[in-house]
């Protein structure tokens, strides 16, 4: 057991820190830095630029092999970079799905169409296939060397700005449910793809419906083989939770620092809320849970669902506490000059409700722990 960093890791930390000092993007204002959630629409352009800059400096895809533009480093190194970005309040990485999920999956299954600059989205969920993903109905039919796709995806985050999609489609309707699905890498600029943004309860439209009408995908864009998509898709989900374990821990830390700041500013019975014994208890518990997540993330990668559950529960509690600290001011949103911090907390609070749904609901995570970790019988 050893929690000290190696000399190489110390150097990496110093490098990132120095680089961030010189390269923070222009137009990245404090107001938008305390959000713990994924990028908002008005920041997309800025963030594409930011991502390119990070890629040029090799701070993206650290764990990818060198020949694919990565640095062949470990997840621990990646965590260091994320931590420094959080400390510097740098913008988050827009292409979190590409870097954290598509990249590693593609690497695991060996195709070479990778660059750190594209934006990826994940086309798994459908109107009739969410938790029960294996019941998906989007069809891909072989036609010569390519495949023709018809159907619909839903809740597809970032599809409206993405270049590529990790697409799961049914290629053998006769086979057992898990055995007739294929994993495609779809260029979203292909004719026949229609993306329709869906408005969320935050008011933003960050996810979409995606329709496919005779969309042609070359056979070379299949990952892992025909009818083998389920296994590949599950690999992506594993990387998602892994990426979450690291990236989200850092986002939680940013939100927590902001929360502490909020507690010092908001009054409670004539004193700063940070001096109120009950508030101190609640904040300290969130602090403890955030730390535990850091170490559980490092220890129990195989138990990634445990980390996800802790993250979700802690983050939602944090956002609820921000509302409690604001009291009646919690009602005021962006647009009111009386709104606290420009109303950003109202947005992050609303957005946090999705945490327990996206990437597999908390109920499904508990099923996974119960069945795969503890070995309890299936329901």
């Amino acid at each position, binding site marked *: 057991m050893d929690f000290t960093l190696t000399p190489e890791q110390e150097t990496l930390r110093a490098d990132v820190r120095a680089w961030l000092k010189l390269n923070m993007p222009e137009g990245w204002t404090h107001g938008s830095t305390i959000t713990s959630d994924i990028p908002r629409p008005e920041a997309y352009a800025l963030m594409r630029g930011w991502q390119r800059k990070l890629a040029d400096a090799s701070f993206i895809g650290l764990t990818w092999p060198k020949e694919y533009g990565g640095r062949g480093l470990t997840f621990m190194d990646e965590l260091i970079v994320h931590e420094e970005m959080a400390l510097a309040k740098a913008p988050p990485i827009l292409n979190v799905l590409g870097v954290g999920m598509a990249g590693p999956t593609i690497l695991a299954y060996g195709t070479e169409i990778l660059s750190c600059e594209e934006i990826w989205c994940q086309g798994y969920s459908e109107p009739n296939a969410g938790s029960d993903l294996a019941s998906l109905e989007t069809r891909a039919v072989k036609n010569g060397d390519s495949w023709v796709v018809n159907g619909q995806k839903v809740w597809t985050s970032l599809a409206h700005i993405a270049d590529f999609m990790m697409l799961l489609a049914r290629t053998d309707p006769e086979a057992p449910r898990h055995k007739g699905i294929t994993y495609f890498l779809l260029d979203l600029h292909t004719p026949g793809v229609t993306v329709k943004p869906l408005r969320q309860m935050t008011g933003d439209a960050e996810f979409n419906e995606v329709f496919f009408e005779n969309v042609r995908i070359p056979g070379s864009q299949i990952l892992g083989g025909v009818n083998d998509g389920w296994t590949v898709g599950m690999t992506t989900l594993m990387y998602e939770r892994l990426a979450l374990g690291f990236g989200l821990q850092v986002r939680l830390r940013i939100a927590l620092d902001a929360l502490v700041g909020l507690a010092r500013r908001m009054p409670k019975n004539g004193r700063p809320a940070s001096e109120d014994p009950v508030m101190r208890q609640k*904040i300290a518990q969130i602090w403890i849970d955030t730390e*535990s997540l850091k170490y559980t993330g490092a*220890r129990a990668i195989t138990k990634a669902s445990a980390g996800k559950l802790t993250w979700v529960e802690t983050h939602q509690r944090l956002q609820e506490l921000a509302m409690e600290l604001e009291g009646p001011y919690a009602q005021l949103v962006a647009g009111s000059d009386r709104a606290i911090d420009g109303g950003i907390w109202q947005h992050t609070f609303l957005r946090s409700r999705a945490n327990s749904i996206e990437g597999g609901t908390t109920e499904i995570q508990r099923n996974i722990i119960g069945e795969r970790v503890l070995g309890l019988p299936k329901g």
Partner: protein
Amino acid sequence: MDFGFSQEQEMLRATARKFLENECTSTFVRARMAEPAGVTDEFWTKLAEQGWLGLVYPEEYGASGLGFVDLVVLMEEMGRASMPGPFFSTVVLGGLAILEAGSAAQKKEWLTKIAVGEAKVALAWTEPSARWDAAGITATAKESAGGVALDGTKLFVLDAHLADALVVVARTREGARPEEGVSLYLVPKGTRGVEVKLLPTMDQTRKACEVTLTDVRVGADALLGAKDGGFPPLMRVIDRATVALCAEMCGGAQRVLDMTTEYAKIRVAFGRPIGAYQGVKHKAADMLVDVENAKSLTYYAAWAVDENVPDAPLAASMAKAYVSDAFRKVSATGIQLHGGIGFTWEHDLHLYFKRAKSSEFTFGDATYHRERVAQLIRL
């Protein structure tokens, strides 16, 4: 960052588990619960033969000279077995107090004896006020001919009735701050004016006493460490003991989770194993999350106190806050998921449930430690 245990530590764990499964059976534990001693000479000798009574003392005292993380491994296993007896009070509390504060001669005399099983030492610290801070220390040590006279009442003193010596925490001077003017004295068994009364406790595996000190005269050589300077070393001992206790609690919680998972696989209701029902499965998953996070924080704290890093007290408090809640919840859920059999005296679950309760309030509960966390992070 390396969270793994070394090969030697894994071996220690395996040895300890096997030893305790053979020597510390449920029958043995229950026999000790029914008696005042809580230990047999034979069992104590065996612990000495394993080298565990001197596990963390330097080799010059005929001890094993291992690190604190090794102790944590051992404590986890002892917690798993719900081991009764004065191991914790002697090896961790009394022994570490002598190691931290004692003179060369005191260490030589007492640590050598503890390591071979010839002496037991208890720490007489807390008082009827049940405070864990320096202000709670009101027993006095006043100058008297050739030494001091001790007066006061110590409560919740673990295994004082078995001890060959007590480390008594007393106030030698009213300082500007309560942390000043605290001194430690080593009081041998049988000294006039010491009265020890065993208290009936809910957790019968852990024996606690009331110690009344009435004009107890000891010589100047009874002073342990610097006069008026006893509080800092005491806190170092308590931080370590807190982490060791957390490890013991983690071991107990893991055992409850194991028992519950096993039972959920075999107990059938309405034609299916109860573990197939989500009402049961999801509770088990939550238990796992609690246990994993508890271990993460405990292991980190073990490393932190072992290396004496600046945030060691914070790490200890984070661990104790989390583990106190976790063990209480896990052991209660364990009973719930066993149904009626879980409520019987016959079943071992209540041993863990009660141990969770006594441990929760030893060295401060979650509320106390969350406030300490709030202070240490300068909220």
